[in-house]
């Protein structure tokens, strides 16, 4: 059975293809970052399909932001942990 509408994963792939010349003219490190972003869009394909909006690129952008936000939170937590342990180290250093 064929489908009338493309699946969201197909839409992401179409979007990726439409950016291929843009991607080609990026440095390799920037290409890698772009790939990670589109991977995030694909990661939330089921939510995108469920929403079924007529401008799917918006949905993809928001999916990318979700993954970015999760990264920021993870990094913040790491910073807090590191600062706490350093503070702990330095106060111990003074005591000895």
């Amino acid at each position, binding site marked *: 059975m064929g489908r009338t509408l493309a699946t969201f994963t197909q839409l992401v792939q179409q979007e990726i293809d439409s950016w291929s*010349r843009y991607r080609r003219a990026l440095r*390799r490190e920037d290409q890698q970052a772009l790939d990670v972003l589109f991977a995030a869009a694909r990661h939330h394909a089921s939510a995108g399909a469920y929403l079924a909006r007529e401008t799917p690129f918006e949905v993809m952008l928001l999916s990318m932001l979700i993954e970015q936000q999760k990264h920021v939170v993870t990094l913040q937590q790491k910073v807090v942990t590191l600062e706490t342990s350093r503070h702990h180290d330095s106060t111990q250093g003074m005591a000895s």
Partner: protein
Amino acid sequence: MVVWLLGEDGRRIRAVDPFVPTCYLTAPPSIREHLFRLLRRASCRISTREVERYELGALRPTPVLEVSVHAPAQFSSLTQHLIRACPDAQFFHVDVSLPQRYFYDRQLFPLVHCEAALTVEGRIQSIQALESPWDTDYGFPPLTIMELSPDSSSSNPNHGGRDSLVVRMDGEERLLEGDDADMVQRLNQLLVRQDPDILLTDWGDSYLLPRLMIMADRLRMALALNRDPHRSVGTRKPHSYFSYGRILSHAGARTLSGRLHLDRHNSFALAEMGLAGLIEQARVAKVDLQQMARTTTGTGITSMQLEIACRDGLLIPYRKQEPEAFKSALELLQTDQGGLVFAPIVGYHEQVGELDFSSMYPSIMVRFNISPETVNCRCCRDEPAARVPEIGHHTCRHRQGLVPRTLAPLLDKRVRYKRLMAAATQPAARAVLDQRQTALKWLLVVSFGYLGYKNARFGRIEAHESVTAYSRDLLLQAKEVAERQGYRMLHAIVDSLWLVKPGAVKADYDRLAQAITEQTRLSIGVEGLYHWIGFLPSRVNPLMPVPNQFVGLFDHGVMKIRGIEIRRSDAPLLVKRAQAEVLRCLSEARTLVELREQIPQALEIVRTYRRYLHDGHATVEELVITKSLSKEPQAYRHQTLSMIAAQELLARGMSLQAGDTIHYIITDADAAYPPDRARAVAGLDGTWSYDVSAYDNLLLKATLVLLMPLGVTATSLNESTAGC
């Protein structure tokens, strides 16, 4: 056609070759009767015949009338008359200079070593070249040179009169002084006695020759500037023209018969590539030396294309008219791009390699057969291999185009010169080879511009677009090969890439160049390895990178500098000197760590310069700012400093026009009364002072741009170097 020959016995011979130039035309039947009547009435012998000829890229021949003019001297006036009288006819071959057509027809070129059979009256019965213009081992012809200059050749004599003349020949120098009659008489004696082949002058076109001719005329004295007594001196009026967004002026010309007049101050070719380069261009382009010296390089490349067209029997249209085909907005967006430019990664980097495609654009034209008649040909529309990347054009796979045929031998000859240069042991021989390869480089450089220029004989915008499309694809291919091998691309402009990989040495970069050449089939080479190179930030926004603005230290000790004050003609000398000293200080470093260690010393240099400025020691020479007027001085709407200086000069009665150069000094940039802000150098008297803080600002900006990527901020630079 008058041909001057230098015999092996040293005689200079004026020979005449019975050359019959032809032109072609097509005319609607209604005006043919009128046309033939005009031809019958011509004052010289004319013969006609009906023939078929091809236009460039045409599949079917055009029936045309061939008109042969048996008196070359009348060819130009006759054809101009026909063009005016028959606006409905189409003309071909009418506006190619006759000496060029003579060279094409007889397979000769300027200064060729040749063999000729003459009658006693000096008529040429036969003449053949004994060498090819593509030979690299030709010698310098034994021509005698007389140099002629005003007694001080340093500045333009048109801006102030001088009355004596310096004549140099065979290492002997004579100063001609005295009244006009004396001067004309003594110069004439020298010309007759020495009979030089070349008259090499300073300001001969705009000043010396016109003045001498007027003097001789007024005094009714003989002045044998020409070797050929039957001809008068050729004269062309000065004119202004617009090129690459700038207004430039072209001095007039005085050309001689039987002798060559070359003006050092009115020749792009002489200035850029010397006499050896000029001769090289004249030989391959088949353009008379006096014209080649004064014309643009484009005339040379056009002549080479015309020769091939003539040899192929193609029609050369008078006033080309070929509009671009229509394009959609998206097509325009995709096709109307130039070469690719990547923003550099700002900062200093070590162990960087630079790779350059050699003669990228001409090589693309040859390799992919790009020419006005091969782009979007009818025969190869459906061949995938003929397709130009990104854009919808294709190029012909079956017939080699006119442009590639012109460029291929040039590229090949330049490679041979470069090889000879590398093998040359004597500096003098090397210098000549360098001038010759530079001459060819210029022909190659302009060839691309003529592919898309709407007035070019053989230009077509689609051909131009195809070249840039290929160039973008090739640069990206090069980047991809480099990145696959673990290199990081720091910067790339059109045909050059700056790459880095930890631990990579010269051999690695050579291997990379080899790999890219294999993949793209276009030659790329290692321009050099840098100990370090700094890509500098924008002055306006420190976070913004600027393409083609960098300083780098090659591993052989030479610095490569682009886009900063030291390279700019408008920056004050003091600022340039400070920048040069900071750079010299940085060039002591070999690594990034050493570069940072140089910072205190660099700051000390800035401090010294600031103190010098604050103490009021700076001289006019060190402070002068040079700007060119981009429009008529009356047309400026804002009170810019150069405009204020221009107004001051106008008030002093000097005449100024767009394109003129203004020299001024900033006296008080913030003054409420605009004339106090700047002063023209020409009007400076004893009572002037400079604006310390304005120059201090320029100094700080010029040095900050070098130091900022090393962690120095505007504030820290200002504070750490303020100690007066």
